[in-house]
C-alpha cells in the first residue's frame, strides 16, 4: 500500500485560482477593447499589441535573467492586464518606442522591483502611465479624433480636444458657456464616434463598455462593488455641489463619463494588490480617490486626475489596512 498523505485541515479546496481571477479581468476588458478597435482602428491595435507584448516580454526577461526564478509568471495573466490597462491609458497614435518605455517602467519599476505579483505598492500600469505623462507630456496629451481607422490614424492623426480639456478651459476662462461644446451625456456614455470632442485614450471613450466589464466582474465575484461605487458616488455628489454653486464646473454626469474616471474606478482602483482589504477600507479609499480626482481636475495643472489620485491612494492603502479592520465576530453582542 502506498503511504497515506497527511496534512493539516482543510483538505478541500475551492475551484478559485489566481489565473481565473486574472483572466476574468481580461474578459471584462474585452468590450472596451473591441470598442477601441472600432473607434481607433489600426492605431489602437498597434498600441495594444505593443503594450501587452512588451509587458509580457519584460516580465519574462526580468524573472528569468535578473531575479533568476525558476518559474516565470507570465502565464498568470497579470502582465497581460498591466499591458492592456497601460494601453487603455494611452492615445492611439503613441510611437512604439514610448510604449516600450512605458511597459518597461510599468513592469520593471512598478512591479518587479518590489518582488513581482502581489508585492507592488502601486498599480503598475498607472506607474507606467504617470511616468510617460511626465516624461512625454506632448505626445501623451494629444489625442487623435475618433474614427480614423487606417494607418494614417496612427502615423499622422488629426487630433482634437477631449471633453476634459473643454472643462478645463471653462474653468480657466471662467466662462460657463464653453461647456456647451461638450457632447451630451448619452453620447459620452455610449462613445458615439460622430460626436464632437469624442477623443481620448484608447479605453476611455465608451463608458458603456466599461460598465459591461464591471457587471461581468461583479457577477463572477472577481471584485466587489465598494470601490467603483464609492468613487463614482463621491465624484457625482461633489461635482454636483460644485456645479450648483458655480456653473463653470461641469455637470456631475459629464464629470463621471469624461476622461478615465470609469476606467480607473472599475479596473485600476480595484486592482487587488494595491487596494484595501476590507469593505470599510475600500469605501474610504474610493471616497478619497473621487475627491482627489475632482480636486486635480478642477484645481490642478492636469486636465485629468484619475491616475494620480489612484497612485496617491495606493500609497495610503497599507495605512487604511492598518486602521480599517473587519467587524470581528462577537462585537455586535458586546455592544448590546
Amino acid at each position, binding site marked *: 500500500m502506498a503511504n497515506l498523505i497527511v496534512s493539516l*485541515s*482543510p483538505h*478541500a479546496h475551492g475551484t*478559485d485560482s489566481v489565473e481565473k481571477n486574472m483572466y476574468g479581468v481580461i474578459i471584462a476588458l474585452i468590450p472596451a477593447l473591441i470598442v477601441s478597435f472600432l473607434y481607433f482602428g489600426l492605431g489602437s491595435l498597434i498600441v495594444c499589441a505593443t503594450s501587452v507584448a512588451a509587458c509580457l516580454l519584460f516580465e519574462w526577461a526580468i524573472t528569468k535573467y535578473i531575479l533568476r526564478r525558476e518559474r516565470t509568471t507570465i502565464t498568470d495573466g497579470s502582465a497581460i492586464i498591466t499591458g492592456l490597462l497601460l494601453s487603455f491609458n494611452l492615445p492611439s497614435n503613441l510611437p512604439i518606442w514610448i510604449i516600450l518605455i512605458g511597459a518597461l517602467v510599468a513592469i520593471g519599476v512598478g512591479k518587479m522591483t518590489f518582488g513581482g505579483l502581489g508585492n507592488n505598492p502601486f498599480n503598475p500600469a498607472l506607474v507606467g502611465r504617470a511616468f510617460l505623462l511626465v516624461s512625454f507630456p506632448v505626445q501623451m496629451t494629444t489625442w487623435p479624433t475618433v474614427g480614423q481607422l487606417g494607418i494614417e490614424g496612427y502615423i499622422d492623426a488629426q487630433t482634437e480636444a477631449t471633453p476634459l480639456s473643454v472643462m478645463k478651459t471653462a474653468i480657466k476662462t471662467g466662462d460657463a458657456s464653453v461647456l456647451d461644446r461638450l457632447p451630451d451625456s448619452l453620447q459620452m456614455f455610449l462613445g458615439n464616434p460622430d460626436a464632437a470632442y469624442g477623443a481620448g485614450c484608447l479605453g476611455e471613450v465608451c463608458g458603456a463598455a466599461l460598465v459591461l466589464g464591471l457587471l461581468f466582474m461583479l457577477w463572477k465575484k472577481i471584485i466587489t462593488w465598494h470601490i467603483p461605487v464609492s468613487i463614482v458616488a463621491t465624484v457625482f455628489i461633489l461635482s454636483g455641489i460644485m456645479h450648483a454653486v458655480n456653473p463653470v464646473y461641469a455637470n456631475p454626469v459629464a464629470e463621471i463619463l469624461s476622461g478615465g474616471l470609469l476606467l480607473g474606478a472599475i479596473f485600476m482602483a480595484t486592482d487587488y494588490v494595491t487596494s484595501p482589504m476590507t469593505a470599510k477600507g475600500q469605501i474610504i479609499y474610493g471616497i478619497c480617490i473621487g475627491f482627489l480626482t475632482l480636486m486635480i481636475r478642477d484645481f490642478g495643472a492636469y486636465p485629468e486626475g484619475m491616475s494620480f489620485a489612484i497612485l496617491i491612494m495606493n500609497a495610503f492603502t497599507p495605512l487604511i489596512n492598518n486602521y480599517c479592520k*473587519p467587524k470581528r465576530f*462577537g*462585537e455586535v453582542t458586546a455592544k448590546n
Partner: protein
Amino acid sequence: MKSFTFRIGGVHPDENKITAEIPTKEAELPKQAIFPLSQHIGAPAKPVVQKGDKVKVGTLLAEAGGFVSAPIFSSVSGTVAKIDASVDASGYRKPVIIINVEGDEWEEGIDRSDKLEKLSAHPELTPEEIVKRVRDNGIVGMGGACFPTAIKLTPPPTAKAECVIINGVECEPYITSDYRLMMEHPDEILVGVDLLMKAVKVDKGYIGIETNKPKAIELLEEKSKDYPHIQIVPLDKKYPQGGEKQLVDAVIRRQVPAPPAIPVNVGAVVQNVGTAFAVYQAVMKHKPLFERYVTVTGKKLTNPGNFLVRMGTPMSQLINACGGLPEGDNKILAGGPMMGKALPSIEVPIVKGTNSVTVLTDADAHRKEPSPCIRCAKCVSACPMGLEPYLLATLSAHQDWERDEQEDIVSCIECGSCQFTCPAHRPLLDNIRAGKQTVMGIIRERAAKAKAEAEAKKAAEEQKAAK
C-alpha cells in the same frame, strides 16, 4: 420556507453527500477493539480493568480522570488483552485498552428494546439526575469536539442558559451520519432534546437543520408537533454553520463574544443531534456511549455507506467493508474534508468523536501548489470570525506573536474557510494554527505568571500583617 444563517463570512464547498440516502447498517464486530483512554477534551480516563479481565458490552473500562473528563465503556464482550500504547489519529502513540472480542454479551442493565420512553412518563428524572446519568454514561459532544456533555449541562453560575440549540446542520461536505440519525431516530432525538432542556432548566429548544436536508426538516417538523417548545429552524447551506458560535448566531441572532466567552454566555447551550440521541439512550435506556453513527465515504470507494459502529473498531475494517482503499494516493480523514484530521495509519480505532471516515483519492488528496498572495481579500470576506487571515498568516510566518495577539488570532476557530477560498492556494491555516498555538501558550504563561505574582504578593502582605 424562511431560512436563516450566520452573519459574517462563510463559504460554499461542494456537498458530495454521496451516502445521504443509504440506510444505516450495523457494522460487523471487530476481532480486536482498541479503546484510547483520551477520547475527549480534558484529562485522560483512568483504567479500572486489568489484563485478563472479562468484560461485557457496556462494562466500564476506565473512569473519568478528572473534572473535565469522561468514563470509557467497552463496546464489545471479551477479554482485556493488554493495556498498552497505540497510534492515535495524530500518529503519536497514546495509552489504550485492547480487548479481544469473544461473542456479544451485554451488561444486564441496558434496555435493548425499541420502545420509546417519553420524558412525561418519568417524573423521577430531575435535572440533577439527568446530568448524573449523562456523566456516568460517558457522553461527550458527538460533533467532533468531544467536550464532556455533563459539564456543558452545568453552566457556570455567572451565565444563565435560556435555550438549547441542537446542531443538525452537518455543514461539512461528505458526512451524512447526523442526517441518517435524524431520518432514522427522530423520536428519540426529540426526547433527547427534551431531556437536555430539562437538564439545563430551560423551556425553549431549537433544532437547526440546513435546507439541503429538506426531508429531515419535514420529518422533524412533523414529529415535533407533539413538542410545542421545540422549534425546527431551517438554515441556509453555508459552511461553517455547524460551528458552535455560528450556529448560535444563525438561530438566535446573538454573537458570542471573543474567547474566553462560550455560547452559554449569551444564553445558549449547543448540542449535536448525535449527543441528543446518546443522551436519550443513556438516560432512558441506561446505555453508555459505546456505539455511534459513522459515515464511511469517498468518491472512489466502491460501497460507501453509513454504519452503526461499535467504538474501538479499527477504521481499516470499515474501509474494507466499503470495498477497500482505492488505488492511487489516498488521504484518510477522521471527519470531513474541511476540519477532519488526516490519519497516518488506517489501524486507528473509531472513537466517540469520529463522525466520518472520508477517503480522498488522487487529486483530492493533494494540496494545490501555492503562489504569492495577490491580496484579493477573499479570505477576509470568507472568515466567519471577522478576522484577517492573510495578515495573521503573514504575522505568524514572521513570528510576530505580539501583533498576532492584537489581531485576535485566538478567536480563530480553524474552520479552514480562508484556505478553502484562497485563489493562490496559500497554506493560510497552517500558519495561523501555528501562530494561534504559540499565542495561546504565551497567554497561558502570562496568566500563570500573573497568578504566581499575585499569590506571592498576597503571601508577602499576609506575612507583613502577621508581623
